[in-house]
């Protein structure tokens, strides 16, 4: 065997010698993936819609939301004449359709009314019928968006995680999918997903854990609602105001990727150079290297969204928990996070103006092994200065 052949054989043997317990690594990857989505930095994803992960928060962090079930409320019509629906209204609709029980840890994002076009409406809460807490998540979309809804059709083949799945054509032309599957070792998730003849899609999922996360502690043997109850909820006509608001939503008014990049360049600190944008096809997000001297030292990702003033609570719930955010004298909320790490240090700054301007910055700095850890190119003070610059403010109408 010649050297090349010997080397190839040795390479394979050396590679195969490295084993690791994969579950912790899978869990780390999932956490990282959820963080990427939650921070809306999936700019590298080609054409991916922004998905804002809903992270459960404590009841003490909720503002303006009642934990008491109440009758379903209807959507409102904005002064523009276009219907919209708030997160609170979606929660009201959902709770009005649930069987008697307590609810907590609610949060939701509405649709229309000037919300970012690609922020899909959704709601989640922890429901307890007296036999244990169960996470319930509702999502809706007008697009064929499995990232938001999960699949709306039964999978082909026989995936190991599927316990049962059936798909039914209803009399009104809708298609209902009811799916039962496992998640992790003993977790269960049951889903009812409806696609109407008009293309409206709504999905309701429930778990036998309080968080719905893989590996979460099981809080009850099975999810709280039967699949028949789940199906009845998604088939309810109560959702028509939600569908109407989604159909009426307009993409107008949000900053484009080019605008964010151009504005970022105006804020370039002396001594640092912002390189070319390398985020792909995600409106409102620019991602670029920061070069100092001749070295690329960090990457900076900037996302800008304009939320309607009356949707401020929806953003606050998901990104500005009271425990870690600060309110500035002008009412601006700011939250920062510094995660030193090897090989990657991440510094984040996010602000929310009283007028709904939401600016988030994430600076990432990689480290090579066996070298001293350096700080990212821009300091936290510089990141805050960029985030708080008035140049991001919503343009006057």
């Amino acid at each position, binding site marked *: 065997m010649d050297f090349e052949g010997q080397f190839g054989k040795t390479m394979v043997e050396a590679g195969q010698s490295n084993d690791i317990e994969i579950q912790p690594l*899978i869990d780390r990857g999932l956490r990282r993936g959820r963080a990427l989505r939650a921070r809306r930095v999936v700019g590298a994803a080609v054409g991916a819609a922004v998905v804002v992960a809903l992270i459960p928060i404590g009841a003490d962090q909720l503002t303006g939301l009642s934990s008491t079930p109440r009758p379903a409320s209807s959507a409102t019509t904005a002064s523009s004449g276009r219907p919209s629906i708030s997160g609170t209204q979606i929660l009201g609709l959902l709770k009005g359709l649930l069987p008697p029980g307590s609810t907590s840890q609610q949060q939701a994002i509405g649709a229309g009314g000037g919300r970012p076009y690609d922020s899909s409406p959704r709601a989640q809460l922890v429901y307890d019928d007296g036999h244990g807490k169960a996470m319930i998540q509702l999502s809706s979309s007008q697009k064929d968006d499995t*990232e938001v809804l999960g699949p709306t059709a039964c999978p082909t083949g026989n995936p190991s995680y599927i316990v049962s799945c059936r798909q039914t054509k209803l009399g009104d032309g809708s298609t209902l999918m009811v799916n039962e599957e496992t998640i992790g070792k003993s977790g269960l*998730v049951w889903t009812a997903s409806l696609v109407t003849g008009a293309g409206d899609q709504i999905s309701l999922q429930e778990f036998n854990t309080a968080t719905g996360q893989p590996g979460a502690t099981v809080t009850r043997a099975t999810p709280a609602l039967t699949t028949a109850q789940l199906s009845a909820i998604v088939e309810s006509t109560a959702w028509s105001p939600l569908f109407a608001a989604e159909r009426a939503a307009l993409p107008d008014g949000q900053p484009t990727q080019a605008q964010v990049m151009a504005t970022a360049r105006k804020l370039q600190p002396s001594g640092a150079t912002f390189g070319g944008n390398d985020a792909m096809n995600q409106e409102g997000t620019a991602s670029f290297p920061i070069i100092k001297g001749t070295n690329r030292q960090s990457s900076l990702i900037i996302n800008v969204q304009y939320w309607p003033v009356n949707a401020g609570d929806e953003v606050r719930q998901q990104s500005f928990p009271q425990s870690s955010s600060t309110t500035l004298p002008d009412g601006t909320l700011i939250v920062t996070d510094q995660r030193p790490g090897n090989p990657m240090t991440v510094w984040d700054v996010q602000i929310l103006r009283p007028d709904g301007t939401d600016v988030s910055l994430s600076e990432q700095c990689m480290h090579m092994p066996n070298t001293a850890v350096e700080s990212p190119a821009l300091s936290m003070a510089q990141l805050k200065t960029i985030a708080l610059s008035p140049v991001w403010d919503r343009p006057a109408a």
Partner: protein
Amino acid sequence: MAPVVAEYLDFAGARTGHLYRSACLLTGGDTHLAEDLVQETLGRMYARWRRVSKADNPAAYAQTMLVHTFLSWRRLRSSGERPTDVLPETPSVEPDDAALRIALFDALAQLPARDRAVLVLRYWEDLSIEQTAAVLKLSAGAVSTRTSRALSRMRTQLGDDLASFVEP
């Protein structure tokens, strides 16, 4: 969301071990960095799963993403590749598998990152020159040149008679 998560977790369960082994080779045996690379790759796969799951070969997509993540991490701290004009002394190894593996990882660690990626793709992933070129966005000629150069350096590091370490 959960069916998507479950589908993703099935994929991760099937591929994480291989990704980790690839990452160990790419990092020249730095297992901590290898874990971080796999974590980042899995995270990016999850964030893009809607699109990725529709790809013809999600496993190959993940492998490409791992290599790109590795190379981009290298670039962030260095304007160029590691200088390799001064090679370290050839390690003294015992003719057994463990010693050979250590020697191989040490030798890989001395290569420029892109040359290491070429070797991993060609001899671990068993990709053709053309496939390797596609992953690394190089010309086929550049891959051939880098392969020859890297093999030459590996021969210097490991010795001509690698066969004495390889089980028949």
